[in-house]
């Protein structure tokens, strides 16, 4: 079967199935069974269909492009030729890249196999073309499988978790002014409706063939997240959190818009791959930034150069007024010179940073991570799906997808931001007591890991961690959800000793914790996290080796690993180990129903095996390698903003020295973290309270989340409030006065008008009416009801008419 024609169809259908269920539930949701009970089945069925289609697509892909162990060095060309044979089926970039790979002998030859195309063109104006299209490579297929799989698990889970919504709900967290609690009908269908829409949007981002489409579904994902966080919108906290998430994301999207404009202004296209247009194919972003001619080395594209050198172009045009035809030729001739003089690199930098801003907002990086913990107000399945596995991963995915266009400077920015994020989030997670908040902060810090990995050049490592993290983090969230479902509280201090009551949850959560801390037997085998985290550490280490000025990044990663281990096991011990702290919580705690446990088991299995690479070389890393953008295998050296930056090639991190050190570091830090947690919360050799008392200011600093909310409140919110207060004061004091004056005048005039109306106009009308009335009363005397009188009238009238006529027409008769 032909993958080029089959994959878009399969994935497109997988993408549209949730939309179908969304529409269905939107219109017929309430009528689906009692309180819309069957809406869950509709949504689940849709997402299962998507999952099946995605798996079929994966099968197709693997059949077309078998996964083999990555070889570096000389074999690359043969591999490229092999890949070329299959890539010939694909078009666009895959094809071109394949050729290029075949020709340069260096290991940088392996271009990704990618299929790109458009389904439907929304808008075609000048060079700009907005279209609904696809860009499918191994990464796309993989993300499809991951997203649909997790979504399926969570749909199943949610259909059990949300059963409260099946009947009227009394929300105990909403206190009405009357003192009672809110009583409202259940919203079961609405939840799944939003869930389906979210899946549709997420898959849309994944399959998107150009940045415009990405942006559209980016916003759709945002609005879905707003719906879901604010699902209990009667709760003040929930609505506030929803608005917070949305607004914070707007900030990031603003930057993304800037990036889009920069790209469009400079390059005139938003397509990733080359577009087969009339008169040859118009080059896409990737081939523009990394032209095959230049061996896929990153360079400022000609368009940006010319765009930046606008004044020069203008001068040339002024000189060559006589023969306009020659202008382009001369510009083309001068471009190389301009590029060497640095024209347009800022533009490229800004474009990269702008796009990254969007990712910062979406996947909760350092300045904008404050919304994610609050987003835990939403139902736990939402937290698991949207805010741990998929949506927040969208940012990372976009960075990965956009990777070829990012210059070393941008990469450095990304790495630094990631490091800051992971450290801050980890520290906050240390002291959080809300189980879901702990997980939320761990999510933030893991996302920081990924960003950092991408920033330091670990493209495969970052995305690898993205996938594995999606598995175990959704697993953790679902476990916490089941715990909350059992205890009806989020506070870990009230829990404890639940392992006896709910063994399945405890077991699966333990697996999740082990996975996230990257537990494993060094050099032998480990859980999924073990592999991905090692890859990140290794890459960070090689990066810090490459440019010592930034070796802090490595320490951040290592410290992060320690902190992760600590707070995760703190969470597990506080929740499941020891003795119950709050009895009436422990008493009616119970194991969750099957429908909720089953996804836990499935996910835990995956959390274990997701990272394994089979002897044949089959495994996620190698699958990802197929999608590695052209030219990113090689070590890139560049940077003009922060001085010179060297982004080491990723395969260097696999070399023994670096790899061993990284693995050992990871193991030790993790073990240390676990031991410390056990000491404090299991064996109680060290009392956390005393530690907290010892570092009181630090503790409160962390407990208050580094005062970030207060900071933002002071920096942004308060000024805005003040300004708006001023504005409202002006409004009330001045504008309202003016308007009131106008209104008063109008009212006076209206009163005058009304007086005129009542007295004069109505007077006239009434006069007419009364005149008619009196006339009628007089006339009706004529109708005596006496037959004979009528006859008499008739006769008299006849005679009169006759006489009249004879008078008038006398002449006629006489004649």
């Amino acid at each position, binding site marked *: 079967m032909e993958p080029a024609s089959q994959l878009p169809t399969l994935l497109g259908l997988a993408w549209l199935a949730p939309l179908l269920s969304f529409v269905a539930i939107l219109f017929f949701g309430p009528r689906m069974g009692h309180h819309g009970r069957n809406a869950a089945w509709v949504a689940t069925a849709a997402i299962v269909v998507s999952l099946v289609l995605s798996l079929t697509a994966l099968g197709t892909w693997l059949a077309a492009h078998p996964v083999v162990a990555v070889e570096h060095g000389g074999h690359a060309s043969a591999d490229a030729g092999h890949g070329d044979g299959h890539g010939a089926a694909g078009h666009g970039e895959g094809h071109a890249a394949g050729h290029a790979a075949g020709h340069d002998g260096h290991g940088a030859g392996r271009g990704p196999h990618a299929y790109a195309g458009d389904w439907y063109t929304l808008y075609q104006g000048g060079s700009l073309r907005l279209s609904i299209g696809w860009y499918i490579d191994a990464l796309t297929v993989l993300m499809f499988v991951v997203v649909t799989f997790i979504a399926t698990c969570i749909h199943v889970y949610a259909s059990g978790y949300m059963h409260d919504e099946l009947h009227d709900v009394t929300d105990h967290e909403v206190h009405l002014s009357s003192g009672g609690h809110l009583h409202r009908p259940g919203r079961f269908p609405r939840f799944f409706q939003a869930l389906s829409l979210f899946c549709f949007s997420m898959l849309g981002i994944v399959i998107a063939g150009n940045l415009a489409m990405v942006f559209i579904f980016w916003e759709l994902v945002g609005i879905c997240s707003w719906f879901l966080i604010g699902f209990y919108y009667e709760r003040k906290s929930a609505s506030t959190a929803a608005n917070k998430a949305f607004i914070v994301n707007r900030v990031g999207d603003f930057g993304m818009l800037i990036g889009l404009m920069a790209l469009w202004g400079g390059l005139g296209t938003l397509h990733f791959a080359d577009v087969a247009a009339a008169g040859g194919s118009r080059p896409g972003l990737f081939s523009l930034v990394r032209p095959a001619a230049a061996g896929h080395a990153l360079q400022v594209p000609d368009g940006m150069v010319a765009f930046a050198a606008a004044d020069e172009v203008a001068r040339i045009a002024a000189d060559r007024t006589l023969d306009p035809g020659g202008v382009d030729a001369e510009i083309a001739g001068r471009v190389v010179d301009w590029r060497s003089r640095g024209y347009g690199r800022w533009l490229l930098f800004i474009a990269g940073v702008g796009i990254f801003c969007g990712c910062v907002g979406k996947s909760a990086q350092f300045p904008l991570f404050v919304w994610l913990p609050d987003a835990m107000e939403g139902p736990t399945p939402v937290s698991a799906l949207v805010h741990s596995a998929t949506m927040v991963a969208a940012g990372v995915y976009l960075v990965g997808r956009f990777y070829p266009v990012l210059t070393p400077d941008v990469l450095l920015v990304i790495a630094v931001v990631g490091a800051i994020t992971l450290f801050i989030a980890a520290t906050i997670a240390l002291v959080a007591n809300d189980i879901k908040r702990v997980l939320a902060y761990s999510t933030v810090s893991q996302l920081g890991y990924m960003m950092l990995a991408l920033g330091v050049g670990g493209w495969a490592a970052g995305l690898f961690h993205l996938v594995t993290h999606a598995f175990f983090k959704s697993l953790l969230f679902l476990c916490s959800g089941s715990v909350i479902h059992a205890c009806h509280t989020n506070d870990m201090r009230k829990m404890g000793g639940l392992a006896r009551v709910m063994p399945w949850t405890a077991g699966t959560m333990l697996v999740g914790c082990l996975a996230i801390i990257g537990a494993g037997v060094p050099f032998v085998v480990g859980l999924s996290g073990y592999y991905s985290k090692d890859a990140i550490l290794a890459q960070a280490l090689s990066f810090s080796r490459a440019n010592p000025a930034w070796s802090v990044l490595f320490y951040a990663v290592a410290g992060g690993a320690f902190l992760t281990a600590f707070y995760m096991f703190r969470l597990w011990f506080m929740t499941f180990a020891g003795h119950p702290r709050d009895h009436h919580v422990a008493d009616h705690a119970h194991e969750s129903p099957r429908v909720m446990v089953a996804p836990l088991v499935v996910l835990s299995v995956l959390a274990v095996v997701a990272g394994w690479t089979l002897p044949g070389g089959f495994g996620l890393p190698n699958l990802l390698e197929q999608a590695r953008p052209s030219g990113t295998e090689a070590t890139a050296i560049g940077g003009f903003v922060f001085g010179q930056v060297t982004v080491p090639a990723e395969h260097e991190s696999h070399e023994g020295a670096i790899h061993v050190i990284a693995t050992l570091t990871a193991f030790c830090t993790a073990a240390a973290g676990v031991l410390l947690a056990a000491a404090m919360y299991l064996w109680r050799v060290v009392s956390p309270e005393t530690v907290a008392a010892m570092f009181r200011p630090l503790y409160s600093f962390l407990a208050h989340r580094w005062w970030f909310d207060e900071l933002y409140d002071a920096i942004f919110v308060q000024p805005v409030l003040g300004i708006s207060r001023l504005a409202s004061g002006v409004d009330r004091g001045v504008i309202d006065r003016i308007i009131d004056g106008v209104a008063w005048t109008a009212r006076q005039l209206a009163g005058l008008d009304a007086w005129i109306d009542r007295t004069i106009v109505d007077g006239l009308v009434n006069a007419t009416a009364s005149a008619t009335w009196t006339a009628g009363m007089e*006339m009706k005397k004529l109708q005596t009801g*006496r*037959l*004979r009188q009528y006859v*008499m009238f008739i*006769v008299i009238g006849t005679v009169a008419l006759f006489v009249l006529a004879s008078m008038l027409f006398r002449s006629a008769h006489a004649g």
Partner: protein
Amino acid sequence: MSQAVLAGFVTAAAVPTFAAGFLSAPVGVAHYLVVGAVLFTAGVVCMVVKRNALGVLMGIELVLNGANVNFVAFSSPDLRGGGPPALGLDGQAIALFVILLAAAEAAVALAITLNFYNNHATVDVDRADELKG
């Protein structure tokens, strides 16, 4: 001798001159029109004067009849001195329909009168003034 007998008979009859002239004038349409006019007027006056519903009804009959006289007169070829009549057969047809409709009208009117009598115990049309303004 017959002439003589005749003459004597006539002189004995002594018909006045104007009567002779009157009688000897050939009959024209106008004569019929006069009759029709008289009938019509009588009918109208009857309708006006009579307080008895039946009287009014008779007045109506008279009126219709007067009209009929005119129609027939105009339709008759004899009254036109052999010339083609003004209306021809149409006049007679119209008269025929008038008679038929008059019969129908009489039937309904009688029924109404009877109802009126049932309700008011009288046939005095002046008592039927419920519809006065």
